[in-house]
């Protein structure tokens, strides 16, 4: 029997609410809904109980499509590139950039890749000390200037050091900044011009709701984001922001942060994300 338009609308609305409740942004939800409706137009459904299954199947396909962006294997990319390979970390305040650098450095070390840390946050209280602690914990060289110094100069220094000492990777920390602050966005552009990074990583907070889209899109417009890291997934965040960010910038989520330790960084897996959204 034919599924009534009303019944379909009700199911689609419930689905929409579920996605929004998982912090998937409005625009992405719209796109997923349209995809599912298209899939349903082709499908033959015998009874309404089947409809639920067909929709769930279509939903998983739709999410997979959003997340199916050519992924980057950081390790492979580093090995294939001329050294030093420069990774620049950007994002709004407090998302976990500095902590992510420690974790990426730890991963690279395990693969026998040498790293230099660059203390590019010269503004925030304790920022240089924080990254220095990570450098000490991991036995890594850190290039830093005094507080208030020009971040681009720190980046330049770190890259020159890496060239001189034949270090593979420079991990460049930058200060958190609001995409609404023109001066800070200009500062970030300048750091990029000087550092000429191989990879620009946007670090986003999984706890963020719809603002994740605006943040990611503005940072992408300003300096071009190559990939993202989503942190604080362990705070019970569903992680819908992963879809929002990936969809907005059309770039892959490289890793997710799952805690405080150096090991708490996992390569992003679309299946894992889909399971998580469906629990």
């Amino acid at each position: 029997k034919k599924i009534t338009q009303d019944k379909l609308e009700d199911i689609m609305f419930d689905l929409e609410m579920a996605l929004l409740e998982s912090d998937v942004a409005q625009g992405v939800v719209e796109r997923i809904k349209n995809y599912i409706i298209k899939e349903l137009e082709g499908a033959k459904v015998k009874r309404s109980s089947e409809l639920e299954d067909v929709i769930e199947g279509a939903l998983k396909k739709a999410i997979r499509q959003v997340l199916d962006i050519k992924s980057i294997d950081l390790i492979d990319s580093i090995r294939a590139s001329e050294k030093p390979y420069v990774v620049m970390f950007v994002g709004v305040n407090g998302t976990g950039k500095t902590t992510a650098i420690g974790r990426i450095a730890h991963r690279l070390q395990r693969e026998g890749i040498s790293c230099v840390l660059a203390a590019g946050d010269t503004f925030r209280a304790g920022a240089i000390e924080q990254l220095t602690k990570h450098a000490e914990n991991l036995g890594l060289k850190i290039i830093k200037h005094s507080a208030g110094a020009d971040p681009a100069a720190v980046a330049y220094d770190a890259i020159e050091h890496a060239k001189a000492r034949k270090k593979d990777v420079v991990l460049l920390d930058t200060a958190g900044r609001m995409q609404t602050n023109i001066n800070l966005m200009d500062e970030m552009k300048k750091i990029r011009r000087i550092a000429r990074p191989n990879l620009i990583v946007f670090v986003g907070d999984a706890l963020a709701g719809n603002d994740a889209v605006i943040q990611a899109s503005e940072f992408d417009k300003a300096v071009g984001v190559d990939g993202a890291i989503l942190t604080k997934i362990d705070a019970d965040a569903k992680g819908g922001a992963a879809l929002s960010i990936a969809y907005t910038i059309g770039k892959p989520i490289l890793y997710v942060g799952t805690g405080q330790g150096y090991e708490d960084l996992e390569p992003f897996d679309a299946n894992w994300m889909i399971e998580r959204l469906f629990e």
Partner: protein
Amino acid sequence: SLAQSLRGTLKKIANASNIDKDVIKDVVRDIQRALLQADLNVKLVLSITKEVERRALEEKPPAGMSSREHVIRIIYDQLVKILGEPRDVGLKKHVIMMIGLYGQGKTTTTAKMAKYFQKRGLKVGVIAADVHRPAAFDQLKQLGDRINVPVYGFPKAKDSVAVVKKGMEQYADFDIVIIDTSGRHSLEEDLIKEMEDIAKVAKPDERFLVIDAAVGQQAGPQAQAFHDAVKVTGVIITKLDGTAKAGGALSAVAVTNAPVTFIGTGEHIEDLEKLDPPRFISRLLG
């Protein structure tokens, strides 16, 4: 924005000769979408729209007001009621404990508040009770030095409760003691216990939940967990200088029933303001 998304469906009310259930259903769904886009908690959205639905069916728009303006007015009233009146923190002797999720702005706001009270002639002492985050003590000490406020703690500290105990003794004759604690979330049982232990030892008069304006659906549940553990007495919404609608923060206010005491509007010490409810709600509704 809410206003934009209502434009389409409320046209249907205007065109319908009598308000029928289907039209109301469409309107309610559009409102739900818009409020969710502003990061309001799903449960809160459902309770707001239930109320809107009831009033939209029972009330006639006041003279000169379109049904669209009327519905927006009903929503606006609901949100203002949930937000409540901001609360002034009294200029008397008391102990304030700062709590919240990771990276929300607790440490920065601790320094902002310390300056706020000091400017008003009170003797302020800060306790650096975050023993987990690398260089947490350095961060707070640098901020304290900048504004000439003493910070008690030490870089190699491992026992947060011990630091708080000693700090409280140190500042026994101060007017204001602010305790900055480490970030934590509801699933970390040991850290929730640490927070409860700090509260037992310090017996703070105020427990301020610091929440980032960008937090989404987790704001409500996390605020509930903090509230269940140590009873939140005030909410501080930070990073309002960004674009986030702060619907999550509003949800935190709703579950804790705690008024907003301050808002953070930037990274500098002076970027601490009082909440302006009409401005906050208009910004949320776009």
